[in-house]
């Protein structure tokens, strides 16, 4: 049971992130929801690479036969974190422009004309 706690945390983070994107009416809260969703997926990637009782996968100062966790998911997670930072910067700069035009951050203000 204790080995499954990271997976329960992943499920919880994803559900909280989706709830925030779907039901909150403030644009900044929506961006925070996207960040929480992305943290959940990154946690899932990291958890996949763990082996019980392993150390960090670094060769310097450790013997070569020590039990090490898998390094590939760690590389994937680093890439995903960097992509998340870029997306977050773009979204926040667009919100600054929207606030200058409309003066409010309510999500119905960016509805646009739909015919």
């Amino acid at each position, binding site marked *: 049971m204790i080995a499954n706690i990271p997976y329960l945390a992943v499920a919880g983070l994803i559900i909280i992130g*989706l709830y925030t*994107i*779907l*039901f*909150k*009416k403030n644009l900044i809260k*929506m961006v925070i929801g996207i960040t929480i969703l992305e943290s959940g997926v990154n946690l899932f990637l990291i958890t996949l690479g763990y082996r019980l009782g392993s150390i960090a996968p670094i060769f310097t100062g450790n013997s070569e036969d020590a039990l090490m966790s898998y390094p590939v998911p760690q590389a994937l997670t680093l890439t995903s974190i960097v992509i998340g930072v870029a997306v977050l910067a773009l979204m926040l700069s667009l919100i600054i422009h929207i606030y200058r035009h409309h003066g409010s951050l309510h*999500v*119905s203000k*960016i*509805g*646009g*004309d*739909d*015919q």
Partner: protein
Amino acid sequence: MIDMILETLQTGTGFWNPLTWIVAFVIIFLIVFIFRGMGNKSYKKGTGQTQAFLSGNKEYEKHQMHVQSSNLYWGWTESLKWVIDMLKKMHTGNVSDYVLWFIVVMGLLLLSVGLI
């Protein structure tokens, strides 16, 4: 090389050759043109014979008589008003609704493919 260009497209139950179509189109166009040339050429230009008939109503200026695009196809949009109103309510422009539709479709697919 020349027969590779002139091949016809096989659709499994039929075929389509655009060059044959163009030849047929040109022949029929020439026939219609000859028929048009056999018409009656005697009419007086500039008199009332060449003006549009408006049944006695006053004719507006030329640039005011242009039908606007939101008034075209009025009959079609009136008779399908229930469909169009339902679709307009669906397209709200709210970004939370866009993600909601995505989650709904994903949920339906999970239920149908994953569980059944």
